[in-house]
């Protein structure tokens, strides 16, 4: 059963991954962390806005798609919301399979799709007091689109 967790609470990667381990053989995971700078400017915080209700649905749809397309035993998405300081964990995407190729591909799909297909918006506050909304990146769209089936 794929699982999706959205909210302000931090998570422990070890505990989260342990929920996937039973007889899996292969667990691939990705953790996103708030960096200390953006465009070489020191960052004070990253704030994640989201669309409650739609977010959970969108992530569940992405996880279900992964379960259908790869031979997975389980997958897990955790995405934090609210104000996060540099060094804080933002997101975890993980997939468990008997086959390492499936686990790694599915995990890559999960992180590529949740960047473009789940209603989150990143807002950067810099240490110099300025702030901006993060612009969508074309490279993220390309990373997403490579998973579209012909």
């Amino acid at each position, binding site marked *: 059963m794929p699982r999706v967790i959205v909210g302000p609470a931090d998570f422990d990667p070890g505990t989260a991954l342990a929920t996937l381990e039973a007889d899996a053989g292969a667990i691939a995971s990705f953790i*996103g962390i708030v960096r200390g700078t953006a465009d070489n400017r020191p960052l004070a915080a990253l704030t*994640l*806005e*989201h*669309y409650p*209700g*739609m977010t959970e*649905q969108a992530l569940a749809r992405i996880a279900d798609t992964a379960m259908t397309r790869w031979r997975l035993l389980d997958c897990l998405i955790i*995405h934090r919301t609210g104000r996060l300081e540099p060094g804080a964990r*933002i*997101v975890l995407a993980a997939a468990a399979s008997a086959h390492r190729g499936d686990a790694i591909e599915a995990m890559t799909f999960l*992180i590529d799709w*949740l*960047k*473009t*297909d*789940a*209603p*989150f*918006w*990143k*807002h950067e506050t810099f240490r110099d007091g300025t702030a901006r*909304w*993060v*612009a*969508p*990146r074309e490279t*993220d769209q390309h990373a997403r689109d490579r998973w579209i089936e012909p």
Partner: protein
Amino acid sequence: MKILYFAWLRERIGHAEATIDPPAGVTTIAELTEYLASLSPAHQRAFANRSAIKTALDQVFAPPETPLGDAQELAYFPPFTGG
């Protein structure tokens, strides 16, 4: 009908949520967007670049030509930047 604004749309318009009755003749998302853009200078500025704005009807992505039907909730937002 509940209207939701996210990210810089919310900031530019000045509130996150509004309840409106679509005026007569407004039957699609695009028509409602026209109407909302006419409400104030802030709305007009927020909606200036329509191609940068996405919409979801009852939490499902929907293009501008989508009929409003009996939907309860219409959300306006820029492209997603999560992860």
